[in-house]
């Protein structure tokens, strides 16, 4: 996990930083912001079967000023580039970005020779913290992405990782 995007200050207090990071990690409010079919999976994650609210991350704020994490769920077109970038710039620090789905990661199926209007990867516009592959990713994958972001913030994983045997 890289820590290059974490907010830094000149004077650091280890325990206080830990507490602040714990608070931030446990209330990651996403922005109400969906671009394509990945947004449907994001809504499903907030619904009753997968329930994002268990981790305190279900408060989808409509204004970028109040949100902490931007879930880029879908294809970013050239036309949308400016809007997405503005939304990112309007979020106050500390802020994180989750690139959800193949389109947001690399352009996905739209990456071909002669592509003229799709941004090939949202990390060309601003730094991305967590990539969630899939077309679209299942809600479990988004939950895993949120937990990974929490791990990135606090340096500790919420639950031990289980590998398929």
């Amino acid at each position, binding site marked *: 996990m890289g820590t290059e995007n974490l907010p830094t200050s000149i004077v650091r207090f280890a325990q206080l930083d830990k*507490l602040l990071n714990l608070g931030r990690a446990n*209330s990651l409010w996403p922005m109400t912001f969906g671009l394509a079919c990945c947004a449907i999976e994001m809504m499903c994650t907030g*619904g*009753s079967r997968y329930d994002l*609210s268990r981790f*305190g991350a279900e408060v989808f704020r409509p204004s970028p*000023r109040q949100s902490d994490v931007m879930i880029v769920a879908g294809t970013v077109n050239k036309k949308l580039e400016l809007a997405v970038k503005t939304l990112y710039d309007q979020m106050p620090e500390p802020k994180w970005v989750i690139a959800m789905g193949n389109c947001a990661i690399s352009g996905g199926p739209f990456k071909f020779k002669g592509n003229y209007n799709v941004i090939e990867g949202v990390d060309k516009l601003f730094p991305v913290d967590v990539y969630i592959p899939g077309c679209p990713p299942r809600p479990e994958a988004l939950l895993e992405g949120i937990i990974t972001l929490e791990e990135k913030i606090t340096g500790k994983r919420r639950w031990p990782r289980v590998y398929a045997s």
Partner: protein
Amino acid sequence: METSIWHALLYLVGILAFAGLNAAYLGYCERKGAARIQRRSGPTEVGYAGLLQPLADGIKLMSKQLLVPKGVDGIIFRAAPILAMVPAITSMAVIPFSGNIQARAMELSVLLLFALAALAMFAILLGGWASGNKYALISSTRAVSQTLAYEIPMLFTVITVVLISGSLNLQDIALDQQGGFWRWNIFRIENGHFLTMWISFLIFFICTIAETNRAPFDMAEAESELVAGFMTEYGSMGFGLFMMGEYLNIVVAACLTTVLFLGGWDCPLGLIPGVWWFLIKIYILIFTFIWIRWTFPRTQIYKLLNLNWKILIPFSMVNLLITAVLIKVF
């Protein structure tokens, strides 16, 4: 009424603690209530049953960058969130929680409460105005027209209560209703007539929902139309203070409904009155607020105003007339 410094300090700390605890944990209750109504489980992982969730939110909101955007009116922009909190906390000073738990007994406490409720509207107006954002401005003007309109039937229904009790003192109004639920203002029988106070209660309750800007009347922060309404430009704790102010307004509205209609601290069976009955009643009312919010969709602004001007105001005026006639003439 003793007015020593210790008395004042005790009540100051007590009311601030009560207000802070309510403002923090009503957010949690709302998220849990929303989750239960939508067949989810709500916050469960942060502390036992998610009980540390408000703490995490508070830490996050306080440690977030305090952003004052370009082009806002700096002083008013910073003052508005504080103004959202202050009237709600101030009005708790005159609410009688029980026969002897009241910070300041005032003769005109009903009047003071409604003056402060009108002041709470200014927080929204100033916040929306100072943001320099068109959505915030539309939202604040909506909120003002809504609050002003709904104050009329609210005051008409309060006049019926004042007619019965013959006093503008909340303590007297509550004392007048002691001794079982049949003596509460909502089921009031005066001179052998069953008064129409339950209509008053319904109108008053609808008006409190509208006054506190709660769904289905939350025209001020209609996400689908106005981004986040008057809070659009507020991040971090400015937004937190607005939310806390909203929850405190709900608490005050529930307290006022309890005192005016539900007998204050009186036990329904007339047995042991006490502050716990007051708390039980206000939390049932607050639960109803949350229940209504997550059950009904948002109305539209013209339907909201039509409901007020065409239904609530005529009904409350006729209701006042009937009550006055039943009490004073027959």
